[in-house]
């Protein structure tokens, strides 16, 4: 079955960590990416901060268009920061991999994937602006 490994944390906390702690977090991610890469296809996604998001709110009535609003609004609680998705034999194996990126600043949720499609990858590169 495919599992997702979802990462929740308070946005911005990572940047406040001392260098050694940041390195430890990154070492965990590198180890996980290496392990997943050796096993086959996987997907990893790091999201930009919540402040870069725009929300499409459900339409008030079936006839009206959905409302596009800035935000989410300020919330000091944890935010969804990114995720991994890969094929695992069972929950134990997924958990074993999730442990690699565990740290005091993040809550990691392992959730089975009901359906997944598409293949993509991206490195930071030149992008266009209107």
């Amino acid at each position, binding site marked *: 079955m495919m599992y997702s490994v979802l990462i929740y944390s308070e946005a911005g906390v990572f940047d406040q*960590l001392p260098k050694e702690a940041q390195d430890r977090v990154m070492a965990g991610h590198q180890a996980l990416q290496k392990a997943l890469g050796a096993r086959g296809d996987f997907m990893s996604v790091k999201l*930009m901060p919540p402040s870069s998001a*725009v929300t499409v709110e459900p339409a008030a009535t079936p006839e009206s268009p959905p409302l596009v609003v*800035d935000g989410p*609004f300020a919330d000091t609680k944890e935010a969804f920061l990114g995720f991994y998705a890969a094929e695992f034999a069972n929950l134990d194996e997924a958990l074993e991999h999730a442990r690699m990126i565990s740290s005091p600043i993040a809550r990691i949720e392992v959730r089975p994937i009901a359906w997944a499609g598409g293949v993509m990858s991206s490195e930071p590169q*030149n992008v266009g*602006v209107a």
Partner: protein
Amino acid sequence: MSAWLEAGFVTHRPRAIAALTRVFRNIDLAEEAFADACVKAVADWPRTGTPTDPFAWLLTVARNAGLDRVRKTTRRSAILDRNAEWLKMQDIDEPDLPDPNAVRDDVLRLLFICCHPALARQDQLALALKVVAGLSVPEIARAFLVKPKTMEQRLTRAKRTIAANTVPFETPSPQDRARRLGEVSLMVYLMFNEGWSTSGGDAQIRLSLCNEAIRLARLLLELFPGMSEQAALLALLLFQHARHPARMDDRGTLLTLEQQDRGLWDRAAINEAVSLLQKAERSGQSAPYQIQAAIAAVHALAPTAQQTDWHKIEALYAALYALQPTPVVRLNWIAAIAKIQGADVALDEMAALEEPLAGYRWFHTMRAAFLAETGQAQAAHAAYETALTLAPTGPERTIIQRNMVACQENL
């Protein structure tokens, strides 16, 4: 373990200090109470586990700690009268959070208090770094290149000044809120510039000012996600900051945009800035930070300096000048005109700025460059000489002196 916890405290600090300042009407007391709560968290959390809502926990404990301190002073009665209901000792296990909208106004008020007009600009920045960002006095002293003792005295004086000139603690009117946001945004912008201009100091140390300014811009955008100028301000700072790895060569010489290795620019920061600018542009308004961010975007997205779209930049400066008709904006506009129409035209256009910008060293270095370009080496040399008398930073001085040598060779 405490390093991990402290990283979290730093992110909670602005909202916590702001809310506590509203209750206690005293920044020192708010800072002390929050410090008490952090000390208790470091002692308790490893044993009890991190609470579900760390912010609510810290705020509740800080409020209780502050109350304890108040009980020992004469300030007690006024504060108790004002907040009788709220100031009952709170149960840590059932913390109640203040309304997020109230906290939003609290943070804005706290930043606005820091940029009180009775304070010198540098003291405003220092105060915001101390109170809101939570930097230590030695850290701030280093950023402003003064002795810790001096900075300590300046901060004490600044706090005394603002205590004597209070800002109302009622919920602000929409107009007041907009005005405060404008003032505070300007302070954040100037904090970044203070770090970026490396006035006479070690660039690496000054970077902390840029990083803190970006954090504050992020905070403002979190608090006001619907304000396109807040997204634009953060975009502007990120575009600029993305260039810092390429800004100097190995010997610490400043490099111009043309000379920088664009491969060193921070693409992740540029991408985030682009997405924020796109968000801001959805508003359909055209406002100063947004135009400046759009100009920065043209530079950031040009694959090479030669491929820079100067026509677009020229049009953007024209739009900015319509909103902010200042001599400095006009000067930047002329720099773009020079790229399109040549140095001769630019020199003519600059004549009108000679008086208002007489004390602005960039006016003279730019004029010198155009004079040199049009074969007027002697006049160029003189213009560089004028620039040298206007307190350039170390790296700038090096470049000016190098250009003066080049002028002499062309005499």
